[in-house]
Structure formats: C-alpha cells, structure tokens
C-alpha cells in the first residue's frame, strides 16, 4: 500500500508548487527561443556580410565619385562597428523590415506573405496524409513486432527514408501525369484558372469553396494530390518509425500486462492505453516532420513549379536577390524553431514529468 501512496503524495506536492514550476519552465523556454532566434539572425547577418559584393557599390554604381560613395556608406551605417550594425539589423527585423527584394521591387515581407499560403497548404495536406497513414502503421508494426507486418512496414519506411524527394517528384510526374494522366501537372491550378478566385485565406482549396466554384476546387485538388502524396509518404516513413519505437517502449511495461489480465481486449489496450501514453512525444515528431516539409519545399516546389516559399527562395538565389534569400531563410528558420518549441510546450502542458 505504501508504494501506491508515494506517487500520490508526489502529485499532491507537484500540484501545490505547480504555478512556480510552470513559471520556471516557461521562463527557460522563452530564454531558449530568444537564444536560438539570436543565433539564426546572427547567421543571416554574417552571411549578409560574407557576400563578396560591396553593398555600397551595388547602390551607387562603380562610377560614383568618392564623396557620394562615402555618404552612402555612412547612410548604410557601414562605418560602425559590427556589433552596432548587427543591432541595427535586429531592430529593422523586429519592425518587420526585411529589406526590399531587388527582383520584385517589393518589400520582402510582402513577397513572403504572398507565397507562404501555397507552401502551408501543400505541407498541411501532406502532413495529414502522413499522420493518418503513418500512425496506424507504426502501431500495427509495434504490436506485430518481428512478424511480417512489422518487416513490411519497416521496408516501406526505409524506402521513404532513402528516397531523393525531388527525383520521386519527377518520376511521379512522368508516371501519373505523363503516362497515366491521372493527375494534373506542375503548378497549383490550371493556367486558365489562375487568379480566378479572390484570395481570402490564400489557401486555394478553401478559397475556391468559399467562392462556391467547385470546378476550380477539383482542379486545384488534382494539382495538389501528387506532390502532397509524395511528401506525405516521406513524412509517413518518419512518423511510422517513431510511432513504432514509442509503442514498443510502452508495450514492454507492466501496466499493459495488468490491463490485459484485468480482461481488457488487446486491441483496447493497444489503441487506448498505450497509444494514449505516447501522444505527447508523437506531437513532437509530427511538429518536426512538418518542419522538414517546410524546409524540403525548396526541392519539391522546384520540381512541381509550386509557387510557394521554396520556389521563391530558389528563384531569389538565382537572381542574386540577397534580401529575399535571407528573408526566406529567416522565415523558414523561425517556423522551424517555432515548431520545435511548440513540441516543448506540448510536453510542458501534457506531461508532468517534463517540468
């Protein structure tokens, strides 16, 4: 009996100090976000200074007289020490000033907000596919450890892990668009429908429904289905593998045996008790794979001419549009950090052991 009392005492103590403990954990989280963002901006700042182009010459041209050159240099603050320059850079970023894109002559922030919905739409459809297939696959693999379903799912996962996504995209286009004609080709929607619906949310699938235009909706659907399935497959590989290993960790424990001895069906024990206990680490895994999807967008969007953040980054790179490149890097990097931290918050809220 004493053994069962002990954890109860512990929870009572945790409950009493809960606000304090939560506060400390939250503080630590904020510090770590701040530090990581500091590192990220530092990296983009350094990269901006590494570039072998004189920013003053880029503005005034190489025939400008010396005094114009010097004045512009002063104006840009390039005479100041590096840490001050970095400080000004941070101040501008915090005000939402990412500079002006040389190619589109618009503020980089405006450009980013324009292309972001396309990327989020694709990544979201992909992660939904990845979770709804990958999670059950992981559970099935773990509950059949060492038997053929486990091996099959392991091989399916390993193939997904090893596949160059951009190549898979090309082959997918060749097969399902070129040969079979089951799906539409590159792009978000047929050229005829381009800009036909008002961008309310920026997500074409939602906007077309809001406008009541089912023709565009199904057209957009036929465009998104191939890239989303391929990306979904890649995240499925990761999600099913992690689900399997988390599940194995649970199934080994005694409470599983106890629940079964009490007469619960194995199915209920697996899908309710064990799966319920791995939800928190699974959120981390899903958040991380969403981050990988945003990052991998550079490759998939190039293959599918998908007008999102990835394609924007890649095009800016080839146009030597440094402001746009660094802005895009910051956007993806912050999203990545945000998703990382989101999973930490999930731990804090749902798992008392993490405090």
């Amino acid at each position, binding site marked *: 009996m004493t053994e069962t009392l002990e954890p109860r005492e512990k929870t009572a103590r945790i409950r009493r100090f809960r606000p304090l403990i939560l506060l400390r954990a939250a503080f630590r989280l904020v510090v*770590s976000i701040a*530090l*990581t963002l*500091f*590192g*990220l901006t530092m*990296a*983009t700042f350094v*990269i*901006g200074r*590494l*570039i072998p182009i004189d920013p003053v010459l880029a503005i005034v041209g190489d025939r400008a007289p010396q005094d114009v050159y010097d004045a512009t240099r002063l104006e840009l603050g390039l005479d100041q020490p590096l840490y001050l320059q970095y400080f000004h850079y941070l101040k501008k970023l915090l005000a939402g000033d990412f500079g002006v894109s040389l190619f589109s002559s618009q503020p980089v922030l405006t450009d980013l907000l324009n292309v972001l919905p396309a990327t989020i739409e694709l990544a979201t459809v992909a992660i939904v596919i990845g979770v709804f297939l990958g999670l059950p696959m992981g559970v099935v693999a773990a509950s059949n450890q060492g038997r053929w379903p486990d091996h099959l799912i*392991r*091989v399916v996962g*390993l*193939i997904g*892990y*090893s*596949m*160059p*996504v*951009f*190549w*898979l995209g*090309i*082959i997918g*286009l*060749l097969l399902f668009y*070129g040969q079979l004609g089951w799906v539409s080709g590159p792009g978000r929607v047929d050229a005829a429908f381009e800009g036909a619906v008002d961008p309310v949310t920026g997500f074409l699938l939602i906007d077309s429904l809001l406008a009541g235009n089912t023709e565009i909706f199904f057209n957009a659907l036929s465009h998104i289905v191939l890239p989303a399935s391929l990306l979904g497959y890649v995240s499925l590989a990761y999600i099913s593998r992690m689900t*399997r*290993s988390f599940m*194995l960790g649970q199934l080994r424990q005694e409470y599983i045996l106890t629940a079964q001895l009490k007469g619960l069906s194995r199915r209920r024990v697996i899908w309710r008790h064990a799966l319920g206990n791995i939800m928190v680490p699974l959120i981390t895994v899903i958040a991380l794979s969403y*981050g990988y999807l*945003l*990052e*991998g967008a*550079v*490759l998939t969007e*190039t*293959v599918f001419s998908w007008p999102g953040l990835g394609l924007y*980054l*890649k095009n800016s*790179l*080839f146009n*030597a549009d*440094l402001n746009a*490149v*660094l802005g*895009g*890097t910051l956007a*993806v*990097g912050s999203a*990545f*950090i945000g998703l*990382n931290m989101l999973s930490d918050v999930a731990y804090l809220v749902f798992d008392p052991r993490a405090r």
Partner: protein
Amino acid sequence: MTSAAASGGLKAWLTSESPDSRIQARLGRWYGGWVSLRGNPLAFSGLAIVVFLLLVALLGPSIVTGSPFDQDLQGRLAPPSAVHWFGTDSLGRDILVRLVYGSRITLTIIFLVSVIVLPVGLVVGTVAGYLGGIVDAVLMRVTDIFLAFPRLVLALAFVAALKPGIDTAIIAISLTTWPPYARLARAETLTIRNTDYIQAARLQGASVARLLWSHVMPLCLPSVIVRLTLDMAGVILTAAGLGFLGLGAQPPAPEWGLMIADGRQYVLDQWWVATIPGIAIFTVSLGFNLLGDGLRDVFDPKGL
C-alpha cells in the same frame, strides 16, 4: 583437414571467454558484431551495397572505358543499348561512365563530412560532459542553436553567400550535421565520467586531454558511428538536392543530383536520363540506412 582445424581454432580464439590480449578481445568483439550482422539479412544487404559503392569508386574508372566528359552529339539521348548500357545524356555522354565517376564525388562528400563532423562533435560533447558547469551550459546552448537550423535552407543561404560548389556544399552540410554528435558524446561522457577507472586514471595524474582522448572518446565511438552511418543517407540526399538545384557540384561534374537536373527536361520522352542517377542515389542511401539500422541492433540492442 588442417585448414578446418585452423579455422575452428581461430573461431575458438576469437570467441574465447578470457582473451589474453587487448587485440584478441577487440577482434573477438568485432567477430561477435560480424556474426550478428550476418544473421540480419537487411543489414547485410546494406553492407553489400556500401561495399559495392566502395569497389565501384575504387576500381570502376579503370574498368569502364571512356571519360565522363566525352561528348558525342550524334548519339545524344540514345536509349540503353549494348554499347551504352544506361544510354546517353543530352550531350551524348555515357550515363554508366558518369555514374561510375560520380560515385567518387559521393564518397568524397561522405568522407569529408564525416572527417569534419566526427571530431567537432566528439570534442564539443566530451568536453561539455566532462567539465560540466558553465562550459557545459555554453557549449550545449551553442549546439542547440545549430540544432534548430533547417539544414537545407541554411545550406542554401550559405551557398548564396559563397560560390556554389562541392566544397561550399560540404561545409554547409557539416555545419548543420555536427550538433547531434555533440549531444550523443555528451550523454555518453556523463555516464562514463564518474566510473572507477576514470577516477583511477585521474589519480594517476592523467591530464584532462589525455583522459578524454584515450579513455572517454573511444567509448563514445560506437554510438557515434552508428549515428554517422544512419546520417550518411541524409547527407547524400542533401548533397544531391543541392546538386539538383544547381548549388552543389557544378557542370560538367558527373554528380548524381546534377545528372537528374540535366535529364529533367527530357523525362517525358527519354526517361532513362533522369531515372538512372536517381536509382543510384536511392540505392546508396538505402544501403547506408539498412547498414545503420543493423549496426544499431548490434551495438545497442536495447534501442529501438
């Protein structure tokens, strides 16, 4: 007869419960690993793929005829045939020859990334874990910052600042690959730090550097090497992705990702130009994944 007896003797020597020398013990451990790797068909096929890659890179260029840069504009985009087993690309270059030479580029990238990532990760991790305190806090914060960077995008930004090329790609990949190794090495060091034999070595007057180098790092190696094998697939895919985007290896290098980019515009009519290098990338990265999985089972049976 004698050879059978000798091999039986060798096996007994290798599996001896009480080895007489350090070498015998070490060889025995390797033999044990080899036996369990052989019993795992998936891992063994992974090993076979990796060994095949090594052989192709070492011997391939002296077996295939022609150079990866020989153009034959009359015979461009020729389908696979007896002369050109894998066909030719848009400049009439033999795809098989280019694949074979490209394996050297892949191996170079893998090798250089490992050579950069391993020492950095090991040193940062063991120093942080062993010294603890403020050194640990600072080093691990830095590690966390690098860990939070999206690999491909940072590589892109990095390439944007320097010039595109294999060396830039290698540096960029290494920059985002080392942090997990530091974490691994630190975790291992924390468990080793307070063991008796470390105390004994310290009492004998061993310096921190000596302790870390000869008593801590060797014990970190197994888990780090398993992780490295598993990471190799990711490194290959990233390098190929950079090549595909035109930011890694530059033409006319026979880098596999670059070859896919070359063949992309012909894919609807001449499928082999883009398909075959992709199969090569996939096979090699699958090989490393399979091998890494198997090594993990061997070295870390409690793991997943």
